[in-house]
């Protein structure tokens, strides 16, 4: 009833090509942004900010990174954790070598190192497709994990073998390290995630994003339209790895605080891949859905029973949560293989024609 585009006429191509052509969508996005910027930090407690909101945003960005590569450009990758690690270690080195440069600059620069790594490990994609490519990206994952353990220079010869985030300030506020409060960290993460999401959306709806989708849907025809597979695939790897690298850097600097190489293991790659698949490949909003589902649901499941007065041992809760999440993933993929984003889209279509079943 309220979600109608009737009467919203577009008279220019620019108006027709905007990201949210429907007024109600624009209002919805504005409300969500308002809540994220002006409500959440003042309402939520420290646990929610540190353990839910911040990692959710960071993982959503990593999922966007993977989705650019797998969902939009059609190149399957299992190296996400490795590329995130490259970003994290690059950021750590930059922050310890140049401690006076603002941390946000380091975060955004560290993605470039990950992008370079992505391009190198993306080279096989020119000859290999599908699952076989996934295996070669798996090589990237193991190679980087090996580097993080075996090259002491990367962790500044720390006795523990881990990287520990120094306390850095931004505009006079401590944003990293143990002394940083959750609200400044949240704002930095939110700003970077919003900025990069907007930029990626712009890429995706323009020439470059179209080239990626052309390669994904029909590479032979794409070549015939003048797409050079080399540029299209490697640019997808670069952009994807850049986003993963930035997410990895933020993961350590704004969430973990310190990281061992195992933080960027294959488990993380799979976690992000599940987020991308469950959220919906080829959808940006799906990345946020997927990250929320995989990251937040287990926390709610663990925290839920004690809240309503059911005593449950922590270990049991963890096991039960894994079982429930696993079952839900299977159920969702059977019910809607195109992920939560597709469910969202169907919901919106139904709402448009409500109370009728179809238009």
């Amino acid at each position, binding site marked *: 009833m309220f979600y109608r585009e009737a009467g919203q006429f577009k008279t220019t*191509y620019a108006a027709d090509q905007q990201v949210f052509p429907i007024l109600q969508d624009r209002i919805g996005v504005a409300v969500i942004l308002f809540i994220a910027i002006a409500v959440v930090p003042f309402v939520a407690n420290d646990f929610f900010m540190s353990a839910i909101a911040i990692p959710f945003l960071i993982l959503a960005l990593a999922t966007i990174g993977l989705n650019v590569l797998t969902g939009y450009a059609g190149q399957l990758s299992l190296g996400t954790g490795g590329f995130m690690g490259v970003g994290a270690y690059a950021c750590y080195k930059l922050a310890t070598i140049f401690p006076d440069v603002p941390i946000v600059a380091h975060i955004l620069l560290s993605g470039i190192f990950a992008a370079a790594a992505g391009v190198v490990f993306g080279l096989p994609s020119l000859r290999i497709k599908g699952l076989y490519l996934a295996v070669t990206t798996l090589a990237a994952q193991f190679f980087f994990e090996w580097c993080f353990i075996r090259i002491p220079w990367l962790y500044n010869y720390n006795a523990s073998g881990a990287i520990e985030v120094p306390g850095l300030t931004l505009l006079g506020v401590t944003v990293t390290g143990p002394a940083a409060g959750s609200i400044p960290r949240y704002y930095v993460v939110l700003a970077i995630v919003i900025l990069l999401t907007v*930029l990626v959306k712009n890429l995706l709806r*323009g020439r470059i994003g179209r080239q990626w*989708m*052309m390669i994904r849907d029909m590479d032979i*025809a794409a*070549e015939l*339209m*003048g797409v050079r597979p080399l540029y299209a695939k490697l*640019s997808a790897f670069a952009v994807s790895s850049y986003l993963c690298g930035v997410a990895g850097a933020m993961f350590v600097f704004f969430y973990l605080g310190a990281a061992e190489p195992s933080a960027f293991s294959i488990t993380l790659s799979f976690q992000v891949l599940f987020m991308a698949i469950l959220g919906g490949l080829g959808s940006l909003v799906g990345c946020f859905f997927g990250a929320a589902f995989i990251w937040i649901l287990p926390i709610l499941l663990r925290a839920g029973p004690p809240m309503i007065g059911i005593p449950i041992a922590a270990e049991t809760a963890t096991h039960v949560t894994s079982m429930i999440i696993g079952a839900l993933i299977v159920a969702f993929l059977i019910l809607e293989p195109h992920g939560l984003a597709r469910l969202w889209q169907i919901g919106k279509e139904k709402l448009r024609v409500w109370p009728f079943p179809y238009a």
Partner: protein
Amino acid sequence: MNRAVDPRDLAMDGDGLAKGEVLLEVKNVSLRFGGVKAITDISFDIRKGEIRAIIGPNGAGKTSMLNVINGFYTPQEGTITFRGEERKKIAPYQAAASGIARTFQNVALFKGMTTLDNIMAGRTLAMHRNFLWQLLYFGPALNEEIANRRKVEEIIDFLEIQHIRKVPVGRLPYGLQKRVELGRALAAQPSLLLLDEPMAGMNLEEKEDMSRFILDVNSQFGTTIALIEHDMGVVMDISDRVVVLDYGRKIGDGTPDEVKANQDVIDAYLGVSHQDEGEG
């Protein structure tokens, strides 16, 4: 948006050839896959502004010929001269850049994209704004996008597919998919348009529509067309000249009337008309 398409908007003028001059010349081309000879010593030409049909039985090497022309295959022998330039080995994207567009026998659309995006995809080579502008989607990048959108909308008007502009092509019926694919090829404003069985699997009405579009493209935009088609009625009606292949060899070449009278062609492909013997 019912204004008429201005032919000059979509015409490809870059080749500087007058109507009737040789646009593409295939000379003594042979193509082998291991021991299999797909094409043996074939020569023919395509002249600016004509509709050139390539016909022949299944496996005659017609699609292989198109693949050679747009660079998917490199022939072992022979030369191809396009717009006066002889080329030996060429990548498909280079062929596209030189002004050759094509459609495929089995629809090769980008299934996950909308009709609009598919036809926009055809304009890939017309868009040059770099990565940084693309990131901003503002200023020159937006202007370029809109200028190309305008061209694409002209093609959408021309092909009468306004109603499916925002529908993912995977959901469209086959006949419309074929039409979108034609639109995508037209969007590149090619000087040579290759159509691989544009009417396969269509009903009579759809065939008539498609024939009309092909003729209109040819007359309004001046686009040279080479098409492969099995419907002899259509081929003989719309094409200016026909080349006939059989087992990778050329067995006939000429106007539709000449080809119809050619005994080799009748034996290999056309057969004898049963109309002469009366309706059964």
